[in-house]
């Protein structure tokens, strides 16, 4: 793989590689979530929801593109954003695990979306202050869209949680199944340490308390129980993924793999 001669890199080059990897990881988060959201296209409960979910998926795809484009520029344009999206295998993807989980039932997708939207609203607020101008600019653009996303997902949680017996039960199950995956969002990762010190990356460990407070308020209003807190899954930033990513990537990448350099 290009750029793997770590032993020969200067401090500056190492720092740049860490930045590129970090930007790509953030892009992976967005791309994988976008892919899961777009799976609802033509499968949503009703037409307006089909449009809405596709619309949200598009926002995240755009976010992934902005991040991948930045990574490509940092690397000196030795590859394209399409190469990053379509020609890497699961070990090279560094998204957090929560994004790659299958879309499940509607309650599951809404629960996951709420977790992510609350997280993003806090995360992007911090990223606005990044010393990296491009990341700050991407955050400025993304946070406006996230505010709309959060309003939407909150509404669904209230509607489903404080809804029928079935919707309540499905949503509770969804939250219970997702809770352990949320913790990875707030774990520190060694690849980010020096970037945090440089004021470039966000220290995500500091976001956990605010996230919990906000989540608990929403859960309470939706008449949901707080899920069990005694388990968690991790590994995404190390490229250690579940089977689910292994299923998602062939679908995402099929065209480019089957017809290399394909263009419309």
């Amino acid at each position: 793989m290009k750029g793997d001669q770590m032993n020969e890199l200067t401090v500056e080059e190492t720092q740049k590689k860490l930045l590129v990897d970090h930007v790509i990881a953030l892009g992976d988060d967005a791309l994988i979530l976008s892919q899961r959201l777009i799976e609802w296209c033509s499968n949503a409960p009703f037409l307006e929801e089909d449009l809405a979910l596709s619309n949200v998926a598009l926002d995240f795809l755009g976010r992934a593109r902005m991040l991948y484009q930045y990574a490509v520029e940092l690397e000196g344009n030795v590859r394209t954003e399409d190469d990053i999206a379509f020609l890497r295998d699961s070990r090279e993807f560094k998204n957090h695990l929560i994004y790659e989980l299958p879309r499940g039932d509607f309650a599951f997708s809404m629960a996951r979306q709420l977790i992510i939207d609350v997280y993003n609203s806090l995360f992007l607020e911090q990223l606005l202050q990044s010393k990296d101008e491009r990341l700050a600019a991407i955050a400025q653009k993304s946070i406006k869209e996230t505010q709309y996303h959060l309003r939407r997902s909150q509404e669904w949680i209230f509607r489903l949680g404080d809804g029928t017996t079935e919707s309540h039960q499905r949503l509770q199950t969804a939250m219970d199944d997702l809770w352990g995956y949320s913790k990875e969002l707030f774990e520190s990762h060694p690849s980010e340490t020096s970037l945090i010190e440089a004021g470039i990356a966000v220290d995500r460990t500091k976001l956990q308390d605010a996230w919990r407070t906000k989540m608990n308020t929403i859960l309470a209003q939706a008449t949901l129980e707080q899920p069990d807190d005694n388990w968690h899954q991790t590994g995404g930033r190390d490229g250690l993924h579940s089977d689910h990513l292994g299923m998602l990537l062939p679908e995402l990448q099929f065209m480019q793999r089957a017809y290399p350099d394909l263009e419309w």
Partner: protein
Amino acid sequence: MTNTAVHSSAQVIPVKSPEYAIRLLHRQKSSHQALWLLLDQIKDPEIPVISLWDLGILQDVLVNDSAVTIVITPTYSGCPAMVEITSDIQTLLNENGYAKVTVDSRLTPTWTTDWMSTDGRERLREYGIAPPSCQTKNAEPTDIQCPQCHSSDVRVISEFGSTSCKALYQCQNCREPFDYFKCI
């Protein structure tokens, strides 16, 4: 911020937003008026009545010898129209004798509907799209009128409509659905 002042019972007098006024001043001071006018021909691919200028996408026209740089600001992260807009700019300028054209997509300052021109808002309304209403940040707007019958009795069906920038509403008076261009 308000972009309309109400005078008498129904007449609405459009008032320029401060952000749009700044943009307009910048354009008026430019020494490349011909280029700005030329670019007014480029409309949004999805909403063919509104130009890049009206939408607040077109930011600057820079000329260095014979090289032209057009600065635009992307709207929504995933908006697919931006690709077409970029190529439209290239094509139009090439066709009009400008051989060296660069389109610079500038992320920051972030695109906001506050940059929309007053004319642009009117054209949206005439086209059947309710223009952005930004009097309260981060809350659902409360002063949207149906573009068909002008009633204020409207309800939101979905804040995520047919395109990234639009929400779907329905008028409770005439029962017609309509698009609302979201404030961002």
